[in-house]
């Protein structure tokens, strides 16, 4: 895309060369032109955005620095709480809910001078890999409107890919930032667990959820992460101490960097041949640039998908018990409370949420706990140990992000297991709590973007983005600019 980067926009606004208002209006014009066909947003907050942009302009005029994201339009996944602004998780059960507080990441973006253009569409409660499980209807991939954008943060990925905003935030529980980033041809990162505050992020699976940035390029993604990361006393799982600077090593190249190509994910069953081929090219390109590339085996990863689809639903079944029609959201009132719970939840939750809540309830229920949930937790240990072993000989690991390029709308909705397989390469990092980033690397046979995933050990964000930036420079010519498609 020829649009200026978020960093460049912020620099121009800070220097007074362009106003935040004019930057915003340019982006709103793109929204007006293409949003009807893409449907990236469930809510466009034009009035708020104009007020925020005007405030940034006032600061610049008064000689006050608005911050590192001065005047940069951002789109926020609709499970990040925004005070007084509807936050629905794209579920009927939260329709119309206006949170009484802002998520910490929302406050940090605003404090850095960012301008919020809207809340983005998503799979209901972040459960899905295509954004088709939204109560507001699906988002379409801006690069091919017949395809899904991926999910669950498909609206955020599509918003960046369509040029509606240079930056967006999503959440990643099993790949929900990285997989849509790959399918839409943008950069998407899941930080180390605990690096970014979860306060005000509506919970799906609390031991896996992390907020992560989308951007059109690696440097912008690292910049956004540096703005939102850091300790927050409002989140008891927030890591103490200074966060690593994600953007510290972007220009260093990969000379001598040890890169392990994960055998279990590079050529696994279900990885499309064109995606596997692009990954080999990515590995070769890194080797040509001076990296020490080797193939590495992490056998426990074969069990990651099964473990995830027991652990995440189990945690979800507990987290989503709060939607009871008492304090907020929908209530379908009946004669007594139990019948009210049942009527409210049955009417308010969509099919994928019901499926996962039941799966999790089953995995945690008497008689099955040890065989399923308990076993999955032990597999989680094996995966963490497997990564530890791999990182003795490697600095970062490499795999595809998604086993295929963007698939057609409706292709996987009838078969949940086939949809779950979309997350096979991204899930391991969530189970381990490690960071990973998807960076576009060429296209598949269908001309649609392929994402390469760079994985790093906990708090290895700087090295992860270092390698991602190198891949970005080494990538084949990008897909044709957005807007020219059917």
């Amino acid at each position: 895309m020829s649009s200026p980067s978020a960093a460049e926009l912020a620099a121009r606004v800070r220097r007074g060369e362009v106003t935040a208002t004019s930057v915003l209006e340019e982006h709103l014009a793109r929204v007006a032109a293409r949003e009807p066909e893409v449907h990236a947003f469930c809510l466009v907050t034009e009035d708020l955005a104009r007020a925020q942009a005007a405030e940034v302009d006032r600061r610049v005029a008064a000689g006050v620095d608005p911050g590192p994201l001065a005047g940069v339009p951002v789109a926020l996944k609709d499970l990040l709480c925004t005070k007084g602004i509807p936050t629905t998780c794209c579920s009927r059960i939260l329709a119309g809910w206006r949170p009484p507080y802002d998520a910490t990441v929302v406050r940090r973006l605003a404090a850095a001078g960012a301008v919020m253009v809207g809340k983005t569409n998503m799979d209901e409660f972040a459960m899905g890999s295509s954004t088709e499980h939204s109560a507001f209807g699906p988002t379409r991939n801006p690069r091919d409107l017949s395809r899904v954008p991926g999910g669950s943060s498909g609206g955020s990925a599509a918003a960046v890919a369509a040029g509606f905003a240079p930056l967006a935030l999503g959440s990643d529980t099993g790949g929900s930032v990285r997989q849509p980033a790959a399918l839409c041809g943008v950069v998407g990162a899941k930080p180390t667990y605990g690096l970014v505050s979860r306060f005000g992020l509506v919970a799906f699976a609390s031991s896996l959820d992390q907020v992560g940035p989308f951007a059109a390029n690696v440097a912008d993604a690292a910049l956004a992460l540096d703005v939102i990361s850091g300790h927050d006393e409002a989140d008891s799982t927030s890591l103490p101490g200074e966060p690593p600077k994600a953007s510290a090593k972007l220009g260093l190249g990969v000379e001598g960097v040890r890169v392990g190509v994960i055998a279990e994910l590079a050529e696994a069953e279900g990885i499309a041949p064109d995606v596997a081929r692009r990954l080999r090219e990515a590995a070769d390109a890194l080797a040509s640039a001076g990296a020490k590339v080797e193939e590495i085996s992490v056998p426990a990863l074969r069990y990651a998908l099964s473990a995830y689809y027991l652990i995440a639903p189990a945690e979800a079944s507990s987290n989503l018990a709060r939607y009871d029609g008492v304090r907020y959201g929908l209530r379908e009132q009946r004669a007594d409370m139990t019948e009210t719970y049942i009527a409210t939840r049955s009417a308010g939750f969509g099919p994928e949420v019901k499926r996962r809540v039941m799966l999790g309830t089953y995995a945690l229920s008497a008689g099955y706990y040890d065989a399923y949930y308990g076993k999955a937790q032990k597999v989680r240990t094996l995966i963490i140990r497997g990564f530890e072993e791999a990182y003795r000989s490697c600095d970062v690991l490499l795999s595809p992000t998604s086993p295929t390029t963007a698939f057609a709308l409706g292709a996987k909705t009838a078969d949940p297991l086939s949809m779950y397989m979309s997350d096979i390469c991204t899930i391991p990092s969530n189970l381990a709590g490690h960071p990973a980033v998807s960076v576009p690397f060429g296209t598949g046979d269908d001309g649609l973007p392929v994402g390469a995933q760079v994985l790093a050990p906990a708090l290895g964000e700087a090295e992860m983005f270092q390698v991602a930036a190198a891949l970005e420079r080494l990538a084949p010519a990008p897909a044709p600019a957005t807007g020219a498609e059917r």
Partner: protein
Amino acid sequence: MPVTVALYDGRVDQPNPRTSISPAEVAHVARLARLALSEEELSMYTTQLAAVLGHAADIAALDIEGTPPTAHPFPLADVFREDEPRPGLDRDEVLSQAPDVEGPYFRIPRIMGDAP
């Protein structure tokens, strides 16, 4: 609702512990999760949950008895802060989002049946 289940006993030589779930079990789980299912939904979810559990049979069959479980990626201890008063959420603002209130309270339907 009585549900009979064939429980996997942890032996590795029992390779396929559970590849199916019965409609009665799904109905039971739905009740536990406070969800009502139509006959059509019951049939659909039975098929779909069986497919996912069938996939998960690979880990149910693993012999990893001595491996400790991981509930959380990092061993964080409980976090404490000084017990100093600070502003909380505005009560009226919170109550304004509730489906039904009475004065400063959330109002709900009855939670108990009639006295015998």
